């Protein structure tokens, strides 16, 4: 995994990222020498056991965390702080409860001091089915609606990279499937580079070009799997033999991590070079 060198410059490159937190009981190494390349327009999922450092890795990519060592490069330039090219969707919807939907979506622009592209935002709101809800407050929206609003907010300023931290983790299976299709649809209309953390292997398979499996803490890249299905993907592929096998391999990797840290890439056909 660590050997391959991609031909073109990756959109996002994580090089030997190590992050240790200072805690009461001493230093806690959350992620340890993680390396990962994400190509422009690629969708990469990160899966791994709870507490393995997925959020830490994503926050480091976004520049919200300072790495202890290693670096993150966006288009070859180091990311040392919040970057206007990067949009974040947090682990919960993270809407500001004292602002209505419109004001929430306006929030990034207020901070940045830029003007929102109304047409683009209205288009996004339409796509996610939130047109006409602008005056509603977060508590007046369902969990799924809040999550869709968070997605719109993250895409509102047209970032070239979208980082999502278990965006649909709190949703029921049906709503989650709907949201997955929505993400695919939005991606097909305007391909951005997406890194997605998820607990759902199905979600990872449905959405990603590649799936990165992380080891338990300290998190390392344990395996990378290519997902070779063409887009748009129908939900039917989810019941194929290939998906079944891949799911099992990943499951075993996540559950059995303690014993074997480094698992081979899956026997699924390889369409793209692994990192």
């Amino acid at each position, binding site marked *: 995994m660590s050997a391959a060198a991609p031909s073109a410059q990756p959109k996002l490159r994580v090089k030997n990222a190590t992050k240790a937190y200072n805690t009461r009981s001493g230093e806690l190494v959350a992620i340890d020498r993680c390396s990962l390349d994400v190509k422009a327009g690629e969708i990469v999922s990160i899966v791994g056991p709870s507490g393995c450092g997925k959020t830490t890795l994503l926050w480091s990519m976004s*520049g919200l965390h300072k790495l202890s060592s290693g670096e993150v490069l966006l288009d070859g330039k180091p990311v040392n702080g919040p970057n206007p090219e990067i949009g974040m969707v947090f682990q919960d919807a*993270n809407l500001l*409860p004292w602002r209505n939907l419109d004001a929430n979506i306006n929030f*990034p622009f207020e901070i940045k001091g830029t003007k929102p592209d109304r047409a683009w935002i209205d288009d996004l709101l339409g796509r996610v089915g939130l047109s006409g809800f602008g005056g509603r407050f977060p508590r*007046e929206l369902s969990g799924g609606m809040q999550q869709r609003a968070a997605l719109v907010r993250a895409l509102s300023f047209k970032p070239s990279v979208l980082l999502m931290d278990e965006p649909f983790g709190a949703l029921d299976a049906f709503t989650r499937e709907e949201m997955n299709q929505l993400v695919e649809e939005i991606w097909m209309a305007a391909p951005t580079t997406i890194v997605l953390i998820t607990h759902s292997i199905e979600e990872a398979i449905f959405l990603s070009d590649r799936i990165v499996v992380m080891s338990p803490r300290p998190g390392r890249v344990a395996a990378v799997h290519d997902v070779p299905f063409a887009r748009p993907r129908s939900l039917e592929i989810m019941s194929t033999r290939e998906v079944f096998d891949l799911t099992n391999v990943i499951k075993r990797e996540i559950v059995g991590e303690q014993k074997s840290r480094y698992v081979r890439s899956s026997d699924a056909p390889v369409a793209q070079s692994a990192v």
Partner: protein
Amino acid sequence: MSETDAIPEFKRKDAAGSDVGISGGMSALAAGPGIRSLSEVLAIIAVAVVIIGGTELLLNIFAVPHFVLPKPSQIAVALVTDFPLIAPHLGHTLVELFAGFGIGAVVGLILAAVITQFPFAEKIITPYILLLVTTPMLALVPLLILRFGFGYEPRIIAVALASGPMVMINAATGFRRVDSGKIALARSYGASTLQIFWKVRAPMALPMIFVGLMVGSIFGLLTAVGAEMVGGGFGLGNRLTSYSSMIQMPQFFAVVLILSILGILIYVLFFLLGKKFASWEA
């Protein structure tokens, strides 16, 4: 979805039918669920009629002299006839309250906002603020009178000292409620410390700020009246001591009634303000 389908702001009810609006912090001060229906209002009025009428009746039956306990009717008459005499004193009390509470609230809010930004300073200062909160500022009034005389000054200072720390301690609790997720959100857009303060911390603290203002102003009223009772020839507190020394009990209770109404008005004011500006915190 249609316009009519949209739930009007602040008007949503929870399953039990009570107001979702008012904040958790505010509801600590809101006694029970809000009043909803006409029948509830009527019931409350009925209870008042029974209590007032019953008191009137009992005092009549047992022929209690008015200098022990005046009848409600006597109090009402005194309130109406003597109001022109009491009104200037009400004005003085309000001046002391507004000035003292205004100073105390502004200083308290600024201190809370600044201090919560510096955890170390906060640790050092908090015990002293607690001391100010727990010490009855009335105790200082004789000293303040010695220094500042019998005018407004000692009272305004006492009111500020009583309400300021109340405002500060509640506001600080509000500012301390850091939601790291919301702050990270703002930071991810490149927000400055000042932007984070105004756009995240301050709105998040608002419900607790209203609690502080409410408690602080009530404390301010108590202190103003208490200080007026200690010394100086004007103010509602001064009326209380004067009427009781002259055994003018109907007038005495008329002043008490005015003070209760004042307290309720203050409570309702901040309750409504909290409902309007901090109702997002269901």
